[in-house]
């Protein structure tokens, strides 16, 4: 009897935490999304799909979705391409490559708030490092974070700067997992480096690429800290990523119903993204060694 119970006892604490803080909230988000509430009233009337209807009819929502998709569409390929390129140069176990890997990885473990603050300075108009560099080359100063056309690029840059090290480290692991013999075989067969990279390296790190793709798209849809610290979604909504909007609707405007509706939409979106990607890409990435 006890023997049968053993595994349940072992998983119970974790499952309890997960249930209370992850799964129950999904249900209550769904519930709240059908209600009208601002935290202040004692009751929360049921309003059906009103919150969804209103949210979806808002320009803000679509703008935010657009900005978020743009953020992902630019930053994810940029990160992956850069990371693969850099990783291919850093696979060798030399001192220099170790140091560079460390340098690249450092931002990943550094606090996002610190990075956001530091880059707020870097891209501040009058005293920032970026404009100092421009001045050095005789270019007029730029309002990086006040210009709606630039601000998103700045955030993409900062996010890439922070995450690149992670991608590189993962790629290095992926590249190192490719047996050296495959390269030896290609060398004996007479491959030019570019050709071998395209025909051997790229397909073989495909599982890694896939992994990073999933991770970084999911991440792109959840970026918040740098937005909150650097731009608060501005200027003029140019960096109003979904989670920032969620935060604003929920914890600034206190429209709990709409905030929950947005949370539910975000949830559905991410789950759908994950499923679609595994459908499309799944077929092309799995080899047995």
């Amino acid at each position, binding site marked *: 009897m006890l023997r049968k119970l053993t595994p349940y006892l072992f998983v119970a604490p974790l499952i309890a935490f997960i249930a209370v803080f992850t799964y129950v909230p999904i249900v209550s988000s769904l519930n709240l999304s059908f209600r009208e509430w601002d935290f202040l009233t004692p009751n929360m009337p049921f309003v059906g799909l009103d919150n969804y209807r209103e949210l979806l009819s808002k320009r803000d929502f679509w703008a935010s979705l657009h900005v978020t998709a743009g953020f992902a569409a630019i930053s994810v390929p940029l990160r992956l391409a850069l990371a693969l390129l850099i990783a291919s140069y850093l696979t060798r176990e030399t001192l220099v490559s170790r140091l560079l890997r460390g340098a690249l990885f450092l931002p990943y473990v550094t606090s996002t708030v610190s990075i956001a603050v530091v880059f707020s300075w870097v891209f501040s108009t009058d005293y920032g490092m970026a404009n100092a560099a421009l001045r050095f080359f005789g270019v007029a100063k730029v309002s990086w974070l006040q210009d709606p056309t630039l601000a998103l690029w700045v955030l993409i840059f900062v996010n890439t700067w922070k995450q690149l090290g992670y991608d590189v480290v993962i790629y290095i692991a992926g590249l190192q997992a490719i*047996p050296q*013999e*495959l390269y*030896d*075989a*290609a*060398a*004996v*067969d*007479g*491959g*030019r480096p570019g*050709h*071998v990279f395209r*025909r*051997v390296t790229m*397909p*073989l790190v*495909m599982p890694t690429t896939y992994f990073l793709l999933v991770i970084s798209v999911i991440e792109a849809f959840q970026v918040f800290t740098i937005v909150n610290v650097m731009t608060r979604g501005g200027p003029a909504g140019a960096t109003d990523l979904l989670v920032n909007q969620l935060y604003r609707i929920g914890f600034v405007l206190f429209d709990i119903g709409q905030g929950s509706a947005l949370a539910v939409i975000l949830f559905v979106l991410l789950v759908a993204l994950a499923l679609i990607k595994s459908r499309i890409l799944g077929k092309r990435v799995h*080899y*047995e*060694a």
Partner: protein
Amino acid sequence: MSGITLHDIRKAYPGGPEVLHGVSLDIRAGEFVVVVGPSGCGKSTLLRLIAGLERCDRGEIVIGGRRANDLAPQNRDIAMIFQNYALYPHMTVRQNIAFGLELRGMPKAERNARAEAVARTLQLEAYLDRKPGALSGGQRQRVAMGRAMARNASTFLMDEPLSNLDNALRVAMRTEIKELHRALGATIVYVTHDQTEALSLADRIAVLKDGHLLQFGTPAEIYDTPADMFVAGFLGTPAMNFLPLDRLSPSPVPPGRTIGLRPEAIRVHADEPSGLALPAKVLLSEMNGAELILHCETDAGRVTAIAPRHEFSFHPARVWLGCDMSRAHVFDSRTGLRLEHAAMEV
């Protein structure tokens, strides 16, 4: 088809000690040479030097009469089969076989035709569109072979190509490789640490130890006249028994000699026979099909002997070991080197 001559090759990996200490080998065109030796002795390194995947520090590599030290791997007209076959897991069998040709810029139709021709010879046609993951060990081995054959190279290098197969398959693949050699007539340099493989496959065997070439000769030469105790002990199972000469012989003999007796040169008797024979206590008698393998303790040391099982229906406890001294080898105990014609003196 071209011969390979290595002349006093030395090699150290960057930051490491020297791994090959001046190896010279003269491989004839069309010959099947097996390089054997214990793990870490430098076999793979030697092969990679020939392939051009590593550069040697000293010495000369001549392939087909041309100095090849500075040739890139792809210009040496060599095909290589790696230990794990190094098949590209993301390519089909067809693509794997054709990849070498693709790298050399052969048009697609042509190289596929060639891949299919090769696959036919190797009876792989049915698998042309499978990926390596969906093949058995033996099939993978044949794909690796096919990839090398497609290139039409004059020389094949193989690094322990059978070490990942199970025993039955290994025996079967040996036969195939040997037949292939006969069919292609190419020069083959084959690395293994399995002495059975070496004896059965080679035209000539090169025995390597700690980066030194100990002996280079036909299997029979190596087996019958091993250059030293290491070679003698390394090839043949059960291994050769080594006994100090002075413990064996009642009469005074020169000191510092060791006698090597292969198990088949020892006859097991239940009672004391005539001629030189050692009384022995049987530590363990292992039934091995038609034979018993007897691990015995004698005054001269441990000895392994083989007895036909039908002569000993029981597991004997004490036996006499008759030694056929005409088949004994004599070695210098200190240097381990074989002393020619010394055997008869006993």
